[in-house]
């Protein structure tokens, strides 16, 4: 067996620490941050399957997030069924939508998310329109009415699973073939790879993964607002977390989510107490941080780590 790559050790350490957090921490605010970091990380990892590994950059992945969120919210609020059924429905719908979009063009995800936004915000009789849907809280696993500690482990489970998908894409036959398609579709075809089909599969997988976390997010937060779940801001955020962390890497989306989510939480908490004029200042700082990363570390945090490692090994040599 080859030794574990450095990035894998970091992942083992990070996920291991998270697994131990609930043993020592009872602070709901901190646990909430951990859950959100994991969910955002999983969402970015899902985006990374299409945007990173398949090279199909999408700025409309909120469509699949919203499908997952609405499927579960409607299932529980309207039909009094388990959100797990909603999760499965969301996955099924996202597979169909992702397949069609993957086949057409990944640019059409933006249009698709906006169409869904209009439907969700206007179909008042069914979706409650722009008021949104409060998700009823009924304690129990089957109803996803869980405490903070259980949520940490549920979100951690999904995050580890999604990290595993990334590792699979880096080491398996399908993963290598997908890398070929990403680099040059025509050349991949000449080598016997069904480029288009593989791309559609990747986008579909990414859509289904996004939908699952959309469901969990809605159940955790307890409210689904069409203007949030289908927004382009949200789609952009999946992409930015991944780009800042390191696009096309397993750990990148989680590192990006860790950095951005904690930065945002911290800035919001720090500046929210000030005069109203400062209310939005966290956005300015957030934006500045983004520009700095893209300008000076375009390959993301994982790339920066690799660069430093090379430098230090040269220094020791």
């Amino acid at each position, binding site marked *: 067996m080859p030794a574990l790559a450095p990035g894998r050790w970091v992942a083992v350490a990070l996920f291991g620490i998270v697994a131990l957090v609930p043993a020592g921490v009872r602070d709901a605010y901190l646990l909430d941050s951990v859950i959100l970091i994991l969910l955002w990380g999983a969402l970015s990892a899902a985006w990374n399957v299409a945007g990173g590994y398949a090279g199909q950059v999408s700025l409309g992945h909120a469509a699949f997030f919203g499908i997952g969120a609405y499927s579960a919210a409607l299932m529980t609020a309207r039909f009094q069924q388990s959100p797990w059924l909603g999760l499965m429905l969301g996955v099924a719908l996202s597979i169909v939508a992702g397949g069609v979009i993957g086949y057409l063009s990944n640019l059409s995800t933006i249009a698709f998310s906006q169409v869904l936004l209009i439907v969700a915000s206007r179909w008042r009789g069914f979706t409650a329109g722009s008021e949104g849907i409060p998700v009823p809280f009924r304690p129990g696993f089957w109803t996803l009415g869980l405490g903070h500690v259980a949520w940490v482990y549920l979100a951690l489970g999904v995050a580890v699973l999604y990290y595993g998908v990334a590792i699979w894409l880096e*080491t*398996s*036959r399908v993963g*290598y*073939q997908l*890398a*070929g398609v990403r*680099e*040059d579709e*025509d*050349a*991949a*075809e*000449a*080598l*016997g*790879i*069904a*480029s288009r089909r593989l791309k559609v599969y990747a986008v579909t997988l990414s859509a289904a993964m996004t939908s699952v976390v959309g469901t969990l997010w809605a159940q955790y937060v307890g409210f689904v607002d069409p203007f949030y779940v289908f927004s382009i801001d949200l789609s952009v955020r999946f992409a930015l977390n991944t780009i800042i962390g390191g696009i096309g890497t397993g750990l990148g989306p989680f590192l990006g989510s860790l950095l951005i989510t904690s930065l945002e939480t911290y800035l919001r908490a720090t500046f929210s107490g000030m005069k109203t004029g400062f209310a939005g200042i966290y956005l300015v700082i957030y934006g500045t941080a983004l520009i700095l990363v893209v300008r000076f570390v375009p390959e993301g945090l994982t790339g920066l780590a690799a660069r430093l490692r090379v430098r230090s090994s040269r220094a020791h040599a």
Partner: protein
Amino acid sequence: MLTLERVTKRFGGLTAVRDVSLEVREGDLLGIIGPNGAGKTTLFNVISGYYRPDAGRVLLAGRDVGGEPPHVICRLGLTRTFQIVKPFGNLSVLDNVMIGALTHLPRVAAARDEARRVIDTCGLGPYAAARARALPVGLRKRLEVARALATRPRLLLLDEVMAGLNPTELGGIVALIRRLHAEGLTLIVIEHIMAAMMRLARRIVVLHHGETIAEGRPDEITRDPRVIDAYLGEEFVLAEA
């Protein structure tokens, strides 16, 4: 092995390939020459599945493959290189070639071993770990050949793998093509460098304005008045004499 029957490909009003018929037998080394825009690469694109022929048939081992996508044709034993090389730029040379080998070897470890062998055959051994993007053009042309070979083709189409090479690189790739041919691979080669083509090919087809104007042994081709007129020019004949 490969038979073209009156293959025609049009782009709007332009007929890039018109009524081209040819026969490639097992063990052939066929050269295709012609001036720029003669339809050589278009013909390759039709044979390898990138274009659907507007008329005529492409028979590979007796099966009509006209309109089949390239990946299906590759799996039937025919693949090609690209005139403008298309390396997987961000991947290592080894990974590039391994992706070719994965087509017939589903296990990654087995494909990696096979890729190492092919890389050594093509003289790319020292560059296995290098990023494909970082290679100079001569080595990128070799990488194109190595990647195609890793799919274990029975018929390989080489599109100007010698263009832009210095004399040393040229000698190396000619030797490689000779060796592959000697080992039983059937090849169709498009080339502009006449001297290399004369030494390499057993049989040459000359295309001009999308049509076959001559076909025969290299020495016959160089004496053909239509070929001299359309492509080689008087000076070439004088120089050869």
